[in-house]
């Protein structure tokens, strides 16, 4: 029975192919746009989270409770006595969701070359570990990454290099307050220059070996400020951070912060975009609703006589409602399939080749992350499904009014209508 209803509904649709096609095209177009929008948005989010976390932050950071956000030199993990770094690292990487962990020391001071200088943040790290947590080593434009063979080597951003006029091979002076109250001051050789597109990093970050920075800061080897942690899945960060903090807290007072807490602007930006896509969905739904309602009203009016005959022959009002709704369902379903069909190659293209805006813009720093002008889309099937179900539900609801009107027809009057 129900199959017959769908069959009849489908046939009814094509009694006026022009009208059906135009309405279907409107739904298809709206849905295709929602799909492309969702795809680009997901791509943007993933890109922003990836760039925002992989250039410096990492997915999670383990600190002494008082360290963040002031980053005082003295608030090392385990307090002034320091801690067994290797054991701490082992405890962190014991969690299967953790991909890598990298111990870090920070210093804040001036980098000078000849007669120019600039304020910088100095990050001391172990090259092998740091490369698993952040991607600075993939953004080198000159020279190479830190190596243990050159203990006095530093890697700096391109904007900083421009500002102080230094190139690879140049010897820069780093000047910063040390833990013993003196001013640390030493010469370092630039071994590499990176360009990330993130203004703050390119202009203000100096990367050097953990041990070299500890020496400059007069910190003992077991005193570190932070452990940067990379996860297999960035979206789990908040949950993993809470679990890790509870587990590590049994042996050492620590705070574990996930990226949404470390980069609140980034997290808000991501959520803001979700709300924008919801507004867009609402608008498309309203327009689809108006179009479908119009179409189905017309369909019911021109079939008044036919419906009257059907009801006179014993078709119950519920069945009339059912057939109108089935017709709407077919119309919307076909529209969604058509929209999906139009969008599919574009979605694939966005994922594979990206939207190339390079001739219009460069990299943009937004909310503490970088937006690349070559904008890749990412498939967000959940959003595609939600949009389809939402649109279909709205459309079928909008056909409720024409359907009820049809069911309320009085066969005796309807039958006489031309």
């Amino acid at each position: 029975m129900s199959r017959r209803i769908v069959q009849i509904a489908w046939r009814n649709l094509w009694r006026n192919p022009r009208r059906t096609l135009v309405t279907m095209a409107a739904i298809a177009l709206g849905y295709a746009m929602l799909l492309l929008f969702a795809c680009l948005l997901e791509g943007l989010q993933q890109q922003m989270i990836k760039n925002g976390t992989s250039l410096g932050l990492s997915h999670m950071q383990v600190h002494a409770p008082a360290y963040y956000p002031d980053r005082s030199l003295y608030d090392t993990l385990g307090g002034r006595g320091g801690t067994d770094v290797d054991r701490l690292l082992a405890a962190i990487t014991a969690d299967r969701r953790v991909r890598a962990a990298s111990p870090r020391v920070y210093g804040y001071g001036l980098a000078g070359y000849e007669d120019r200088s600039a304020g910088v943040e100095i990050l001391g790290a172990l090259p092998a570990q740091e490369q698993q947590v952040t991607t600075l080593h993939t953004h080198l434009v000159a020279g190479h990454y830190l190596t243990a063979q050159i203990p006095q080597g530093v890697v700096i951003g391109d904007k900083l290099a421009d500002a102080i006029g230094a190139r690879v091979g140049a010897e820069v002076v780093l000047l910063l307050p040390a833990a013993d109250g003196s001013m640390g001051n030493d010469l370092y050789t630039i071994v590499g220059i990176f360009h990330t597109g993130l203004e703050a990093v390119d202009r203000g970050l100096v990367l050097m070996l953990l041990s070299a920075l500890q020496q400059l800061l007069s910190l003992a080897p077991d005193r570190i400020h932070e452990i940067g942690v990379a996860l297999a899945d960035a979206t789990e960060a908040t949950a993993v951070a809470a679990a890790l903090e509870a587990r590590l807290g049994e042996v050492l007072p620590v705070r574990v912060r996930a990226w949404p807490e470390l980069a609140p602007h980034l997290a808000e930006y991501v959520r803001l975009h979700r709300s924008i896509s919801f507004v867009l969905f609402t608008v498309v739904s309203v327009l689809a609703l108006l179009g479908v309602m119009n179409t189905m009203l017309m369909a019911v009016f021109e079939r008044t006589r036919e419906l009257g005959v059907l009801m006179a022959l014993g078709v119950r009002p519920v069945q009339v409602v059912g057939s109108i709704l089935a017709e709407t369902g077919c119309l919307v379903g076909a529209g969604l399939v058509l929209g999906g069909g139009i969008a599919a190659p574009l979605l694939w293209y966005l994922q594979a080749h990206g939207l190339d805006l390079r001739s219009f813009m460069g990299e943009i720093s937004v909310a503490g992350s970088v937006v690349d002008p070559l904008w890749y889309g990412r498939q967000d099937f959940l959003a595609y499904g939600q949009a389809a179900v939402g649109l279909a539900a709205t459309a079928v609801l909008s056909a409720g009014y024409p359907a009820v009107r049809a069911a309320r027809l009085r066969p005796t009057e309807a039958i006489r209508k031309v």
Partner: protein
Amino acid sequence: MAGGWLLVKVGWRNLWRNPRRTLLTALALCVGLALLLISLGLIYGSHEQKIANGVQLGAGHVVVQARGYQDTRAQDLLLPSSVVSATEDLLRSRAGAGVLRGIGPRLLASGLLSSATNSSGVDVVGVIPAAEESISLIPQRIVEGSYLQDAKPSGVVMGAELARKLAVRLGSKVVLTTQAVRQPDAQTADGAAGEMQSALLRVTGIFRTGLREFDAYTIHLPLPEVQTLLGAPDQVTQVAVFLAQAGDSSLVAMRLRERLTGVPVEVLTWRESLTEMAQLFWLNEAFNYVTNGVLLVMVGLGVLNTILMAVLERHHEFGVCAAVGLRPGQLAGMILCESLMLAGMSLTLGLLLGLGVHLYFAAFGLDLRWFVELNLPVWKAFDPVFYSRLSPGQIAWSVGVVFMMTVLLSLYPALKAARTALPDALKAG
């Protein structure tokens, strides 16, 4: 055409032969136009807000600085005082009257600021306090103490985040260390070139802008203090020019370039000095146009459907009209009249709805917190309340676009009506 008025009257009646359909179509058109107006207003409004903030925190609408400074930010690229006075002369002359809001000569440097407990890298801005009061956002965002005054030569104003990090309060002492700039012509006489210089300063004011890059890194000092520290008497890094209208930026920049030809300077408008922001706006606007374009096509298809169906179901009627002597041109004219009236009616409603919402948002703002729960305090990150702005040109443009679309869409049904083949049409009834 003799029957012109009659066609309009008949067209109007025809529209109301099926009031429900007409109203639904009108509603779609109305919503389409209103959306266009609202989204344009909100986007331009939010951009204006961001421009205003960016300009007030940055280098103004137009900035004059030594050539190459924008790219390198090299501390030793300085402007001689002659350029500063030339800029001031031009802008304070009659040509600048009514256009100019203020001029701020600034000397920028980076340094290390240390307190008894901690230290931090800072962006040093040497300013003329009286000039900054009217142009910069920072004097307006003082939360403790007061902004710099010319009378207190060794005061420093810093961001709240920086003050917290250094654990200082009003009256605390801090030490600023920076490197003196090279002076090619005065190197031997000055002796200070390239050396580290320190100065003891007292905190006189603390500001909070809500933007971490300022609150945690920016300090304002009196200009002479920084000039002494850097060994660069009478020199500044840039002259920030603030205008009454952001729209005058290009013109003022052009005038300044003419006046300063031959001098090694760069004159940049905010679009050039805040490139990332300008590009982000471009992206926003491009997205808005694409989205609105697609939505309008959706609306357009609905309109096409209505008019086309109205024409097709009146096949017989058109046949009769043609038989009693209505010419094809008049038939087409009647259909066009119908769609023009439909468009006129819905666009009026759409304009009312769109402008109504726009005026509401212009007065009270659209608070993004309605849609998404923002955990950060309001002053952080960005202002979540957007105020709508629309120019008469934008309104006219939006109405024009939707109107043209409706007219173009009704051409096909009108032609179809005009081509009614008499015998077939009469038989079909």
